[in-house]
């Protein structure tokens, strides 16, 4: 019949009209500035720098290795290494970024900096309300603006952050175990050959032992087993060393590659 389609359509729209006042499910509108949907965990836009503890400057995980700067496809990261070393959060002398700028007007949110960072120091943020009336300085974020606490990281990417924390704890345990083994070996060596007077290895091992702020929570045997397991199975999901929240000295990738002897891991100076 001519016109019954129109009547059907009118009935449908009338149902929509009336239903929009009654059923909450129909109105999918979220009135944005007042109410917000929680961001999905995988959300990301621009990077930020993670710090541990309360002081952003002291706790920055970044050691200015500049890998991210080199890897960044649009070259939006600018890093200046510090001339001096500053004790990091665990008290280990470290180079730190005297300047760490990210130009978010250039950044393309590719996350490559996050993937290459060996220290879990740079992560992707979810903040999207970055509008500014100054398109040059307003969009060039310095290290203070980039610094976010680890707790914040846990807030925005809980799963990823706990994975990172677990990995860091593992690394820490491994390093501690190695340091202990080195110390024991040095002690044994000192006992067997006290007359040689070549204290190179014990000297190197000692500060490592001192640098450990507290003993690892697991038993020693377990630690050793774990460490050896790690050494034999290098196919960890992301075998990146670094500082944990209260971990031992950080290492660069090169350090780690060269770290065949336990003593050497504790030199602690990043070379990259």
């Amino acid at each position, binding site marked *: 019949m*001519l016109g019954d389609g*129109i009547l059907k*359509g*009118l009935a449908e729209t009338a149902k*929509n*009209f009336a239903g*929009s*006042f009654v059923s909450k499910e129909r*109105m999918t*509108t979220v009135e944005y500035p007042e109410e917000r949907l929680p961001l999905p965990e995988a959300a990301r836009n621009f990077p930020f720098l993670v710090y541990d503890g309360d002081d952003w400057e002291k706790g920055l995980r970044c050691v200015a290795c500049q890998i991210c700067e080199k890897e960044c496809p649009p070259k939006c990261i600018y890093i200046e290494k510090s001339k001096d070393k500053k004790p990091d959060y665990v008290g280990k002398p470290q180079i730190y970024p005297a300047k760490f700028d990210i130009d978010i007007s250039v950044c393309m949110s590719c996350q490559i900096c996050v993937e290459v960072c060996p220290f879990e120091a740079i992560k992707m943020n979810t903040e999207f309300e970055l509008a500014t009336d100054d398109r040059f300085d307003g969009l060039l974020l310095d290290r203070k603006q980039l610094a976010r606490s680890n707790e914040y990281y846990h807030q925005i990417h809980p799963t990823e952050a706990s994975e990172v924390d677990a990995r860091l704890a593992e690394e820490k345990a491994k390093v501690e175990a190695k340091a202990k083994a080195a110390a024991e070996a040095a002690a044994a060596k000192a006992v067997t050959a006290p007359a040689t007077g070549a204290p190179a290895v014990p000297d190197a091992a000692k500060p490592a032992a001192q640098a450990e702020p507290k003993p690892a929570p697991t038993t020693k045997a377990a630690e050793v087993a774990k460490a050896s397991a790690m050494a034999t199975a290098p196919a960890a999901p992301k075998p990146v060393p670094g500082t944990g929240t209260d971990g031992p000295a950080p290492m660069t990738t090169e350090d780690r590659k060269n770290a065949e002897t336990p003593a050497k891991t504790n030199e602690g100076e990043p070379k990259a």
Partner: protein
Amino acid sequence: MIERLDQIFVLLKHWLLGYLPESWQTPVGVIISVACIVGLYPALFAVTTVLERKGVGRIQNRLGPNRVGPYGILQPMADGIKSLTKEDIVPTSADAVVHFLAPIILVVTVFMGFAVLPMGRNMVLVDMDAGLLFYFAMGASTELSVFMAGWSSRNKYSLLGAMRAVAQMISYEVALLLSSVVIVMMTGSLSLVKIVEAQNHYSYGLPHWYIFTPWGFAAFIMYAIAGTAETNRSPFDLPEGESELVAGYHTEYSGFKFALFFLGEYVAMFSISGLGSTLFLGGWMAPLSGLQFIPSWIWFFGKLFVSMCVFIWLRGTLPRLRQDQLMNFAWKFVLPMCLLNLFVAALWRFMGDGWLRWIVCSAILIVAYFSIGREGMRRKHFGPRSYRYAA
């Protein structure tokens, strides 16, 4: 008291005029009435725009504008300020004078229609003998302004939009007139006041509106279709089809001139709705004899409001027609139905009282509706195209 409330605006005007000398009373009275019309309908226009946006929003399960003022009711203010402060651009190659005149002529002619429309008991600006004729004459001159706008802009889209608008308005003007002619046949008068009075009696508490007769109902449907097309409203908004013609004939208009076109379109909707309720829905009459204590102007504007809601509802429901569908619909469906309806109305007039005329008239119209509709709905099957090549 009820009588006083019904006539409140008339009495108010007379009270105001009482302070003036005798010779001034007529011109000042006219000016007051005109000022009321010119002030009232733009205000209604402002309300309708926000109503429409909210209503269409709800139809689409959205909220509609809700940022300016509580529930977005101050949105028209923001829109008005915006269009007033916008730059008024006249294309260099445009015919500046005609370009300037077009929106003014549109608004003026649209407002002229209200001169003969009774908006309540004794509330009509001019009780013209040929009121309906005057109304349609004014309505037809909106086509002129639309074409002026499209032609003077010197823009392809504007011109195409204007051509479409003129083609559409002329086609549907015929249907609009023919559907109103049955009312004139029955009433025996072109005066809109007399048409309302002819419907102003009740039996068993129900009114004798023309819509409650077979020919009146058919004429009302045709009138509604033609009126929607005449005001370029969705689904007949091809002249300003933004998907193909930017904005149609007002593509080159900005700022306040554009606002005038917008105003003209909505005021034309009020005007066509007002005429429709005058012709078919008893104008300012109450729908039940028991409700006559409510002032007549409330009924008129209530009917206006309802028909605006129907306009909005239709807009939220129907997709735009194609140009050939539009023309086919006008000439192959609406026009034959209107012509048949003239015959049915005459039959009704001369069959005398009784139930027989109800059956005969309804049967003729229903059969015609179904057969013409079936003919129009039939799909044409095209076979695969065959080609013949010259040897």
